[in-house]
């Protein structure tokens, strides 16, 4: 199993999500965000950067996270990213499609771009389907896993921008599960976190 460290914001939803025993069993340590710069990442293989982190502290952490990836580490980033901190970040904010499922003949607009990717032995596209806050336009050579119909990336893997691996998604199940809303987000985490610990990337 990979050694996973999660950056912990101290907010209520992250407290629930990352202390939930089903997920905690795969998490080696929680690094409290205000202490991140003073915490050693020695031995950490996966650094999980949840959604909705404090802007100032996240941007202060940027260099250390990039250094971790340059040393070959795996970085996971969840949620909308209005601030520049990901390598080759091209984030496009879109109006959140909260209500698509109430429409007749509802389509979420999500496309499984790499059905043979190992993650999809752990989750289905339905498990990743609730709403999106925007899309990424990844750098050439990155692998899009889930996209919108127009090809914007909802989830992608970037092994080209640094020496490490970036698993980046606009989805924010860490928030929704942690705030007791939206069952699909729980199914997502039930598969995603075990995959992160032992799946093929």
């Amino acid at each position, binding site marked *: 199993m990979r050694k996973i460290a999660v950056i912990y914001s*101290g907010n209520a939803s992250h407290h*629930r999500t990352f202390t939930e025993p089903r997920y905690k069993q795969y998490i080696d340590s929680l690094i409290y965000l205000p202490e991140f710069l003073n915490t050693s990442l020695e031995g950490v293989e996966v650094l999980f950067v949840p*959604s909705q*982190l404090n*802007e100032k502290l996240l941007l202060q952490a940027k260099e250390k996270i990039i250094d971790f990836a340059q040393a070959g580490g795996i970085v996971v980033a969840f949620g909308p990213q209005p601030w520049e901190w990901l390598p080759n970040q091209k984030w496009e904010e879109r109006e959140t499609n909260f209500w698509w499922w*109430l429409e007749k003949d509802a389509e979420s607009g999500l496309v499984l771009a790499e059905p043979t990717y190992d993650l999809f032995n752990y989750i289905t596209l339905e498990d990743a389907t609730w709403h999106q806050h925007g899309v990424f336009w990844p750098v050439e050579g990155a692998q899009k896993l889930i996209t919108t119909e127009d090809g914007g990336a909802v989830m992608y893997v970037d092994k080209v921008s640094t020496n490490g691996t970036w698993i980046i998604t606009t989805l924010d199940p860490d928030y929704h599960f942690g705030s007791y*809303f939206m069952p699909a987000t729980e199914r997502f985490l039930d598969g995603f976190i075990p995959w992160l610990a032992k799946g093929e990337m």
Partner: protein
Amino acid sequence: MAQVNPILYLDPGHAFGLSNRTNPFMTANFTLVDQYSLTEMDLSSFNCIVVHDFADQEYLYKNKSIIEDFLNEGKIVIFCGHLFKEWLPGCPIFTPRNIQSHKDYEIFVEKQHPIFDGVSTDDMTYNKGVAGFFSRVTHAPIPANAEVLLTFHDQMPITYIDRYSTKGTILVHAGRDLFALRMQNKSTDRISNQLLQWIEDEFKELQQGGNQS
């Protein structure tokens, strides 16, 4: 020096809250600061602190004496969220609702109150016919003598006012930021302005020694 707005809104600095920094309602009614400024601020010019559901509660717990001292000066703290560390006097750790049906999310008025005046419970319970946005947890048992405003069908409290745990007034709402309930074209739009008015009225009462009356 320009007059500061007397309501201090601790901004968690999260992505969803970015628009608050420039939103006219927010800039007109609050002094918005990064949450981590709390320990460095002179709080004497503020009457009320608003703590958001995305707040870093580890930080608040570590600095809970600041909150308690502020309240004991006869001031107001509003917390909307799920309390998981005991940083707010009298407020117990939240309990999530056990949801069997959408009825378990239904909102009931326990006591008519100016904050929710003219707001229909249906508008609180449902958003485009979907229940669960307004509240999904409870803080129980509430502190002694606290005044419950809203509950679930089984009397579990959603929103309460506590004038007894400190010399000030604490408003706890087990849901998202009440000030964010705006521009939805339903009666819940009334809450944000009515809550602002309540802060003003409550602070006057507190200053006149009206607490615990």
